[in-house]
């Protein structure tokens, strides 16, 4: 069996330990940075994604054109329905405002 004895040029053990600790710190920081980046990116993606319109979080494309058209049509229908509801609501509010008797200052 042959053992390798460190030569005089090899770095000192305590220095090696120090360097190892420094590397570990950098690795830990890199890991934290990765976790933070993934977290922040996911948060931004969730905020920007319109799930009601058929959007997906991590896949922005569609595998099937028909599927895309259906999703677009449904999103358009939902949008139209929302606009119509808003218009009706506005109409009702304007009628109610018109019907409310004015109260003048005494």
């Amino acid at each position: 069996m042959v053992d390798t004895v460190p030569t005089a040029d090899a770095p000192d053990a305590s220095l090696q330990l120090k360097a190892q600790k420094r590397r570990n710190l950098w690795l830990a920081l890199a890991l934290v940075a990765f976790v933070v980046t993934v977290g922040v990116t996911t948060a931004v993606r969730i905020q920007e994604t319109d799930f009601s319109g058929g959007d997906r979080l991590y896949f922005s494309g569609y595998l099937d054109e028909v599927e895309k058209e259906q999703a677009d049509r449904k999103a358009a229908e939902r949008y139209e329905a929302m606009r119509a509801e808003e218009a009706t609501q506005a109409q009702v509010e304007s009628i109610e405002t018109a019907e409310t008797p004015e109260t003048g200052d005494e």
Partner: protein
Amino acid sequence: MSVEMTAEPATPKLATAGDYVQLLKPRIMMLVVFTALAGLVAAVGVTGQEINLVLATVAILSVALGSGAAGAINMWYDADIDAIMTRTSTRPIPSGAVPKDEALTMGLIMSAVSVLLMWIASNVLAAGLLALSIAYYGWFYTMVLKRRTAQNIVIGGAAGAFPPVIGWAAVTGTTPLDAWILFAIIFFWTPPHFWALSLVAHKEYAKAGVPMLPVTNGAKATRNQILIYTLILAPIGLAPLLTGLGGWVYGAVGVALTLGFIYFAAKVWRSEAGEADAGDAERKLAMGMFAFSIFYLFGLFAALIIERGFGLYFPLGGL
């Protein structure tokens, strides 16, 4: 049990943070990041599609990580020939600062992280293209092409040409003609750029047994190829003017840089650069062309960023 005094081939030394940075080939990374940014900015400018600043930053960071990962894998595989060549013998692995296995592990982990981050920040297409470009450089160019064919730089050049396409795909989820024009510019720029350097470093490549063009076909053939590829690159570099990707700023910068590139290529072609009896002037000329080629690429993509990113786009057809 016997004890034998043996010195390691490369005496282990304590690795510094700088050694790990060197492992990522930072100069190549800068060029990669810059061209990816240009693709991203151009995509926003051309299509009008927007990308959140945080997501854009993470996408560019992913490209940088991917480039570094491919660089680390390249250094892991090429450690034997790097030790032979003077120019590369001080790199972290041959100098004994970073163990080979550590470099490979780092490269593989960074590859996975970069692709994952790109996917999270943008879309599957951009992440897929990033994975493809890492594999293209880290495996196809490094392990298959580099030691087998003199066309290594030509075919392998595609690896460095992907970044603007990735940047474009990160914004739009598509890769239209404009994105592939940017790809073609880098693809046809790589051979004259790298061969200019290899005219100076050909003895080193010969020593390491790497079949670079000056080693296999001689200096004259290399100078011919430099001129041919430069003449092919000239119209491709100006192609963004035809599609409307580039406007007046790009046109002015592009024409000036293209003429400069042709001037250098013609001078190198007429010189004795790379020959056994070539003097210092020839060496300087080849290195001058190498430096100008970097300036050329930075200039073209900077013009694109200025036009599309700072609202200075004035279409050629509009005047």
